[in-house]
């Protein structure tokens, strides 16, 4: 996205969040594709190496998107919570879709190119192996099944795991108590793990 596009997006998203706060629930649905696109674009523009805690990096992205897309002088806690929930969902879909596509490309067929900077990091950085792509794609599938059975649990996974939100931020984003977040998080992980073991990885 070029600089010229930023202001309208910020205006639009802030406006939609405010509309939702005043009862227009359809407005939130319109926010999702915008946030998805912006977050994806932000992720693609990160040039630094991703060292350290991986979820901190997704958290950083979500917060960067927040600063960029929301006029925080105009919105309150409710809209912030809405935004975090939507951005978490977007984060999940960006990562899972990417893993799914990677997983589908047949091994060895697709060529990737690297730059000099990356070669320096080659020995230090973990690669996104085909196996890891399969694993993440399988998690994405299992999460879709969980979403049908218990939507709230799947949202907790989006916030806690994919966006790395704290228990408190997750509770605010989903409008539930922190104790419920902890409980859902525990059960959802066990459920997802079992689901993946039972159904295996996608080929």
């Amino acid at each position, binding site marked *: 996205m070029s600089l010229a596009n930023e202001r309208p997006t910020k205006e639009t998203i802030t406006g939609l969040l405010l509309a939702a706060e005043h009862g227009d629930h359809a407005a939130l649905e319109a926010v999702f594709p915008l946030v998805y696109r912006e977050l994806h674009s932000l992720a693609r523009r990160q040039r630094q190496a991703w060292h350290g805690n991986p979820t901190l990096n997704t958290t950083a992205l979500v917060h960067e998107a927040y600063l960029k897309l929301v006029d925080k002088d105009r919105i309150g806690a409710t809209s912030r919570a809405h935004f975090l929930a939507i951005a978490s969902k977007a984060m999940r879909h960006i990562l899972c879709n990417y893993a799914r596509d990677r997983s589908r490309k047949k091994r060895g067929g697709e060529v990737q190119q*690297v730059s000099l900077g990356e070669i320096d990091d080659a020995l230090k950085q973990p690669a996104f192996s085909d196996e890891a792509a399969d694993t993440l794609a399988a998690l994405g599938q299992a999460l879709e099944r969980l979403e049908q059975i218990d939507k709230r649990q799947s949202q907790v996974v989006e916030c806690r795991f994919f966006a790395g939100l704290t228990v408190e931020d997750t509770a605010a984003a989903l409008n539930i108590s922190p104790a419920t977040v902890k409980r859902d998080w*525990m059960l959802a992980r066990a459920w997802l793990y079992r689901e993946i073991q039972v159904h295996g990885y996608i080929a």
Partner: protein
Amino acid sequence: MKPERQARIAELFDEAVSSAPEARDRFVERISSDDPPLGEEIRSLLSASYAADEYFERVAEEAIGPALAEIAAAGDDLAPDELRARLESALDATYRIERELGGGGMSRVFLATELRLQRKVVIKILPEEMALGVSFERFRREIQLSARLQHSHIVPVLATDVADGVLYYTMPYVAGETLRSRIAREGALPLADAIAIWRDMLDALAYAHSSGVIHRDIKPENVFLGSRNALVADFGIARAIEAAADEVNVTATGVTLGTPAYMAPEQAAGESGVDHRIDIYAAGLVMYEMLAGRAPFAGLGARQVLVAHITQQPPPLTRADLPAALSALVLRCLAKDPAARPPTADSILHEVDRAVAVGAGSGIPNWTILAATAAAAFFLVSTVAIGHFMSRQNAPAAEGLRPPEGRHDVPARAPPDTAAKRLVAEAQEFARQRDNKSCETAIKFYSQATDKDPNYAEAWGGLAKTRALCALWGPGDPNVEFAAAKSASETALRLDATLSGAYTARGMVHLFHEQDWSGAQRDFTMASRLDSTQFEPWLFRNHAYLAENNVDSAVESMRHAKELAPVEPIVGVRLATALRYQGHTDQAQAALAEILERDPNNLIAHRERFEIEVATMPCDSAARDIRWVEHDDHPQIRGIVEFHWASCGNAGRARRYADSVAAQASAGSYVDYFWLATVYAGLGDSANVFRSLSKAVTQHNSFLFLLRHHFAFRKYLGVPEIREVMRRAHLK
């Protein structure tokens, strides 16, 4: 599922996880007696939750972070339609864009008609980010050199320009497909086709190299299969981009240098001053892929492939119709050391002729010999080793395998430095003692030897083996030690691919760190074949057999080791261990008695006897040998001692020990989870047994091969949680 039931499950699960481990089983029992399916559901969720923690940590670490890094590396290119629209309007007067051809990687490729000449051309666009960073003038100058190439197997560059900020170059359109799409469709190609295509490629390379142009990005995507022959495209483009980027000093920001899957080791290592031999390596890879249907390191991520090119030997080519000389030739192109590759593309062409002629001419096809060797499991190991073997032993006889002539000759290996030799002799003395103090001293001496003489293969091999042993017994982080051991063994094998000890060392890394049992077997086979007097390959093979749940072969291996080294204590002790697993406790005791008769204070024999006592005897008899082990702080020994106390009336002590280890773990220290699990097993704390074993798998614990056989875990073997652990550890 009904929402009420879902809520009920959530509630019961929560209650179960928050209750103490002892109470948990009773709680679930109670649910089961009222509502068996509900109890089963809770039970299965509970058992999943033990492994789920680890699993999500692993996904975060191995998938989320790397996926983000890869998304970032893909860059924020222009939207496809946007780029095409810009290109169309900028080139409006000269070209008509027909359609997009499948672009590889970052660059985009269009089919167009050049209006003035009414001919079809291919337009390749460099990524926008790259076009911004390069100096177009420099790019144009560089590309002039390759634009001069005129050859029937080369696709020439026609023109290059910048249009509306888009840097592009054009080339003639070749009707047909790329080698990539043919391999993708067919897999391995018929031998005659592969040879014909390779010849054309080599012919093109020979000509370009003699004109001073290195391709730098040879890969199946750049080989076009025309109606009659194969053509190589994109000569010199990689170099032009690099040079143009250098000029404006932006090399580090994302300029393509090549394709990891086809990068020569020296290129992957980022060495400067690479020469035409990187093309020879890549041509070898392409031939390998045509013959095998897949690249040697297929299935790895971009970075892992780079590392593999530097450190790993490709798996051998195993086609029945492949003449041995041709297989050896391809593998020689893949030598890590550029000097060990055939010196020129021309020389490869000659060898191809000869290899094919020999394969067709002799009464006995070469491949029958090859197959026999493969059956002996000899061929299965390092392909370079075979090249080495042949060039070392049969060089005068086998014309085709003689080292290349001229300045590319492989230098004769100089005899090792005398000081280095002395250090190695010293180190070997210490290494034999097998305790953590001496193994550290041995490492010190070996390292000094490799510093003095970096080409001294035996020193690297000894260093590798000792590091692997230290990883088992030493105080350091095994992950670090095993990585160092592996890298030292690879160095040793690069220097001398016939060094038995280096295979033993690498096999130990496979066995004790990677849970790659078959890889370990292959290396130990090679090690004992290269030096049949060594007992160590047999000693460690015994462990690999235990991992494969083949106790009889484990005992056989140890008997063989005993023939080779009748008085070596470790051999007698591990023979006893294997016999114990086989159920022959009396024979095990006899083997230990023999050692203790020679050396009544032999510590490792007493340790093993203590294990037999704990495993098979009542509590008071087990105490017989405890004084030999109770002050030993190695986690393996403590594991058994505390297991003993846990089951023999001093559970409090064992629990305190387990708690202290857990506390060390939360303080960030390395903790051996396998042996911690034995303590929990003694305490009957099954939740922590499962949790610890699951962590043992994640940490690549060295002793996982024992899981099926260790007495501590006997009662858990059929349990789903343990089956899951075994599956993850590749245990049958």
